[in-house]
């Protein structure tokens, strides 16, 4: 039994490399911190990276795996940040340890956000594509509008979370955040690499066929929205413990879009890509903030926008595909190994059949149909052997 478990995909190096990288990064950061070599700015940057990873990975579940565009992810984070941190602040009056407060409120914030995820998932059952995108965007704005007017959360002033905020004297927040990142990665990858993950990707690839295969589309759509919202809520709780005050301005659709940008830059459906993008974007933001003071700050958005447009066009433009293939790592490796490849090999390997020039394209095959002058005249049927 254990042997077969160890043999499964879960324990292949390429499937757990991300755990290793995150864990090594965490251990390295802990060591540096223990030696007193880790600057506060880097510790705080690590927290930002951590919750960005959680957000990006969870949004990737919705966008990359389920194939539904959501522009309201910051809304779930907002729920977690306001309500989760609020709960934590109430708890802090009874419980002294900030860590325990955080852990409890993480669960609470996540669960409440998940409830909202369920509510947003409901329209997702009826709507698709851009319509769903605008509904999720609308949802995010509604949440924000409500929180900025409720008296319990400081209204426009925001929720002051000084009582529970992790300060320099506490256990560095990044440790807890990164352990959570590992847990989130574990859960998300387990989901994706299971029959349920297959069902979810099947819905993305072809909803009609998925339905015809008896996949419970309703259940899985709601399930994905709930899970993603749960994680976003957890990220929100971290946010509330990382900075004060929790203000509605942060959770605008612009932030949802920033998370989406992480997912798209990392590659939809690629968890490792999301991790990399969610690491790079906070670093870029931080470095640009550090390096571009004053008037140059406006340049930051300019650079950001240009990078965004450039990368998306480069990655997706059909016309650039041949250029991209030439310079991609895969292509370089293939080139290095291609010399010993005989044409017959290519012919026998269906993975390379797209490289074989054919005269008849698929459309022509499909269009063979009964037309005037090309009608089918039934032959004398020959009874097939039975």
């Amino acid at each position, binding site marked *: 039994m254990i042997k077969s478990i160890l043999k499964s995909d*879960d324990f292949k190096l390429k499937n757990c490399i991300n755990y290793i990288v995150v864990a090594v990064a965490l251990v390295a950061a802990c060591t540096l911190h223990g030696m007193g070599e880790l600057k506060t700015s880097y510790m705080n940057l690590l927290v930002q990276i951590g919750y960005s990873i959680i957000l990006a990975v969870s949004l990737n579940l919705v966008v990359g795996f389920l194939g539904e565009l959501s522009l309201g992810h910051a809304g779930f984070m907002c729920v977690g940040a306001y309500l989760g941190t609020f709960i934590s602040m109430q708890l802090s009056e009874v419980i002294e340890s900030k860590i325990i407060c955080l852990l409890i409120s993480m669960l609470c914030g996540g669960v409440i956000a998940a409830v909202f995820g369920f509510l947003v998932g409901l329209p997702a059952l009826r709507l698709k594509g851009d319509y769903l995108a605008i509904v999720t965007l609308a949802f995010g704005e509604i949440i924000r509008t409500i929180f900025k007017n409720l008296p319990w959360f400081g209204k426009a002033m925001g929720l002051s979370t000084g009582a529970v905020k992790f300060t320099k004297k506490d256990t560095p927040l990044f440790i807890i955040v990164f352990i959570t990142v590992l847990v989130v990665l574990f859960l998300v990858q387990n989901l994706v690499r299971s029959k349920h993950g297959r069902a979810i990707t099947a819905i993305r690839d072809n909803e*009609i066929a998925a339905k015809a*295969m*008896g996949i*419970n*589309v309703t259940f899985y759509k709601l399930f994905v929205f709930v899970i993603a919202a749960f994680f976003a809520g957890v990220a929100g709780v971290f946010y509330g413990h990382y900075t004060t005050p929790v203000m509605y301005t942060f959770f605008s659709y612009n932030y949802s879009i920033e998370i989406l940008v992480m997912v798209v830059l990392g590659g939809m459906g690629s968890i490792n890509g999301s991790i990399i993008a969610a690491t790079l974007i906070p670093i870029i933001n931080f470095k640009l903030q550090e390096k571009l003071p004053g008037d140059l700050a406006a340049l930051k958005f300019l650079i950001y926008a240009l990078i965004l447009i450039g990368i998306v066009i480069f990655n997706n433009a059909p016309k650039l595909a041949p250029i991209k293939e030439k310079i991609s790592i895969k292509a370089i490796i293939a080139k290095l190994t291609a010399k010993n490849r005989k044409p017959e090999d290519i012919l026998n390997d269906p993975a390379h059949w797209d490289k074989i020039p054919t005269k008849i394209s698929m459309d022509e095959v499909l269009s063979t149909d009964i037309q005037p002058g090309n009608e089918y005249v*039934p032959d004398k049927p020959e009874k097939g052997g039975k």
Partner: protein
Amino acid sequence: MSDIVLRTEDLGISFGGLKAVQSVNLEIKKKQLYGLVGPNGAGKTTVFNLLTGVYQPTTGTFYLNGEELKGKTQEQINRKGIARTFQNIRLFNNMSVIRNVLVGLHNQPEFKCNPFVSLFRLPKHYDTENRMREKAKEILRIVGLEEERNNLACNLPYGKQRKLEIARALATNPTLLLLDEPAAGMNPHETEDLMHIVRKIRDDFDMTILLIEHDMKFVSGLCDEVTVLNFGTVLAQGDTNTALNDPEVIKAYIGE
């Protein structure tokens, strides 16, 4: 208990004023290979869509093994035992061949596995996955795609994609298999091969199969009974030879 698997009664649907299909009465017996033929636009695929819950019939109803399935959703109908393939192939293109089949196996009671079992990787998850893989390989072997199991579905040649669709439908363990133009786009050699596969499926699984096909050699070589549709109505029905040689049918095809 009769051995009639699928019975439709006065099945019909109209879109707006257009009667796409009207009063189709079918009776398909167990292990039967039944053909549904007719010129383009005759409403064959619409009948499939009615039987699988894509459209809801406006008149009539249909029964699978005596149980009325009208009004059920696509998912429910699939679980009751009707599986289908699609005329314009609808594979999960970005997934490997074996994963396509694994999706088909998703609802089998023997592979039931709560999402949280997978989420927390309880031992049951590994057990289920392994058994599913074995089963999927077995099904792929039947349609002759075992070798290709790790390729992306969209990289398969056309004929193999058709076969994969059949394998995937088969994986849902249906009592009735609906094949929508399974031989379209295949060369004669592949068609021959497919005929063997269809028969093998019928024999190995005691399957009842309803198929739409334009290739009359394929139909007449395979089916015991056919129904000929034209403009949404039944033109002829019964024994394959007789029905296909019906003057009305020939007229409908040649247009005279």
